[in-house]
């Protein structure tokens, strides 16, 4: 689960990390008021778009202003902005800070090392992925022993690797440790401070924070429920998740209903190979019931862009007869006004095809056939 910058900052603050405290505003007036309160009209503040996507700086989603009036104006222009498909509903107003140095400090779930890795760089404030690609030697990496957790000597290796001076060491080490504690304590898969800055008067400050939470561990953090931002979630995706269906909205017009994530991706790829554009990724899950298949069809049909639907089911645990019944069931619940191409093989495939054929629905044998068929049907429609 993604959370906003201001939420990440609040989370890190509870672990003792010094953050640049600010105020959230949902209207231009609130932003002006926040500016008044924070700077008293004297210092500058930054107005920062809160969206679950990167690149807001380049998109004009961050503005530095000096007065409440300027803040109102800036917020006005940022609120409602579309950044990579995300509409800005909130801005974070924070005091501008005197920056002496900028660092990157991040903790990630390291798939290759099968552990938790601390990454740091003295190239802070820039896109760390770019640093990783262009100048990997500028990134310090230390992987914590999964069972021991981060040891002090490892935190020191990060600090010495960055050339932190002895008098600044204690504060830096404390931030590294706290960030690790925050990562583990909140079951994050990413916790990053970019930039972590040293101010002109030698204070450490987390200027921008990002935290991604592990969906599978949310059950033990009920308080995180309120960090969820409905504005940032596709309604259909939310509804799918509640029904145990994996759904991702895409830009095309061919709806896909598939069982299994790998097969669902392969099906999207097959549609694309035939010149079509998938409208979604959809995995109905393992032992999909008739009811779940019906729900999946409803979810796909909820997208007005869909011009044809491809069912691709390889029955293993999933029984083809139940899938067939689900399709018929769905037709009684929602109006299916687009053509459907159905591929149904595996466990109980004959029974499934029989059910569909009796209802006047024909099926195809291979995935390629199905993909070709659905693209043709979409064009015809």
């Amino acid at each position, binding site marked *: 689960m993604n959370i906003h910058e201001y939420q990440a900052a609040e989370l890190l603050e509870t672990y003792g990390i010094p953050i640049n405290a600010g105020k959230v505003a949902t209207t231009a007036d609130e932003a002006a008021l926040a500016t008044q309160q924070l700077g008293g009209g004297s210092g500058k503040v930054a107005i920062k778009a809160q969206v679950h996507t990167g690149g807001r700086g380049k998109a004009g989603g961050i503005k530095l202003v000096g007065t409440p009036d300027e803040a109102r104006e800036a917020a006005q222009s940022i609120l409602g902005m579309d950044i990579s498909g995300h509409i800005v509903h909130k801005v974070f107003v924070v005091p501008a800070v005197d920056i002496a140095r900028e660092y990157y400090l991040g903790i990630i779930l390291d798939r290759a090392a099968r552990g938790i890795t601390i990454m740091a760089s003295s190239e802070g404030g820039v896109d760390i992925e770019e640093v990783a690609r262009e100048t990997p030697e500028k990134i310090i990496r230390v992987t914590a022993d999964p069972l021991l957790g981060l040891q002090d000597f490892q935190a020191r290796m990060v600090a010495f690797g960055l050339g932190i001076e002895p008098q600044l060491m204690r504060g830096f080490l404390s931030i590294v440790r706290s960030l690790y504690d925050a990562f583990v304590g909140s079951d994050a898969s990413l916790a990053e401070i970019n930039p972590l800055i040293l101010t002109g008067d030698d204070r450490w400050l987390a200027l921008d924070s990002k935290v991604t939470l592990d969906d599978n561990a949310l059950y033990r953090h009920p308080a995180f429920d309120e960090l969820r931002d409905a504005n940032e979630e596709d309604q259909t995706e939310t509804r799918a998740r509640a029904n145990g269906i994996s759904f991702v909205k895409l830009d095309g017009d061919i709806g896909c209903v598939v069982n299994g994530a790998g097969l669902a991706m392969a099906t999207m790829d097959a549609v694309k190979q035939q010149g079509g554009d*998938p409208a979604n990724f959809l995995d109905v899950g393992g032992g999909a019931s008739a009811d779940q298949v019906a729900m999946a069809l409803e979810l796909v049909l909820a997208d007005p862009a869909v011009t044809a639907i491809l069912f691709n089911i390889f029955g293993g645990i999933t029984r083809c007869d139940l899938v067939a019944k689900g399709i018929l069931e769905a037709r009684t619940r929602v109006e299916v006004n687009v053509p459907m191409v159905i591929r149904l093989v595996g466990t109980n495939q004959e029974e499934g095809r029989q059910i569909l054929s009796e209802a006047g629905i024909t099926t195809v044998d291979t995935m390629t056939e199905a993909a070709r068929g659905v693209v043709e049907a979409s064009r015809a429609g």
Partner: protein
Amino acid sequence: MSILVDKNSRVLVQGITGREGTFHTGGMLEYGTQVVAGVTPGRAGKAVHGVPVYNTVAEAVAETKPNVSIIYVPGPFAPDAIMEATDSGIPLIICISENIPVNDMVKAYAHVKAAGARLIGPNCPGLITPGEAKIGIMPGYIHKRGRVGLVSRSGTLTYEVVWALTESGLGQTTAVGIGGDPIIGTSFIDVLELFEADPETEGIVMLGEIGGTDEEQAAAYIKEHVTKPVIGFIAGVTAPPGKRMGHAGAIISGGTGTAAEKIAALNAAGVEVAERPAQVADLMKARLSAQLRAYLCSARMPFSQHDAA
């Protein structure tokens, strides 16, 4: 031969009284797998499809000597089940469970590794040696004993390819689902090593998907260590970045984990990558035939040399 499991595998089912555990125990028994015991805390003395249930893995091990455990308990409890199996000395642990908190899995993996056991999964369909043992949730009937070893991150996509291999007459030695999570116990490389060493396996199919760099690492390994023909397939060529495609591990993030990178790496390692799942079987058939021809030609060579000598 085959890898990891065969007719001598003695299977313990952790979470046997749950819905999934009970259902798939039936499926495994039906296939002829030796399921010797089940564990559900508090249910000792019961039986599921005739399989005795114990409170703890330690008891089940003492009574029935299993050498494989398959885990069906819900995700939050799966790491504990993995560690219980590990500490009871079971050398091969198959974890079907999904939705495991990843930080718990990191610890469980480290523990299993330190103990020298092997974990397959989590969030995987299990594995099958056709005609000998099915230890997982795959439909048994689509498999056929044969010449190709298969390793995959997916479930149904694997069935698609297994079916094509069966239809083509190639069949499978063993098919292993390594799982779709970010942290998995057994990687492509581990299974490639086993297939390379298995005399019955003539060719290897490797089914990858977006996310992580396991396929790239496997490609590097293949280049150095695998002499048998490998055919690949990567799902998710059209997947957008930043979106998790069902599997927790199937996500393009930070510009890495794309299908294009994986396909390029595999190609560079001499692995043919199919465009469609079913095509895998055709490519493998062609490679094995070509290899046979080459072998027949080279087999004549010594005679000529001998003649010359």
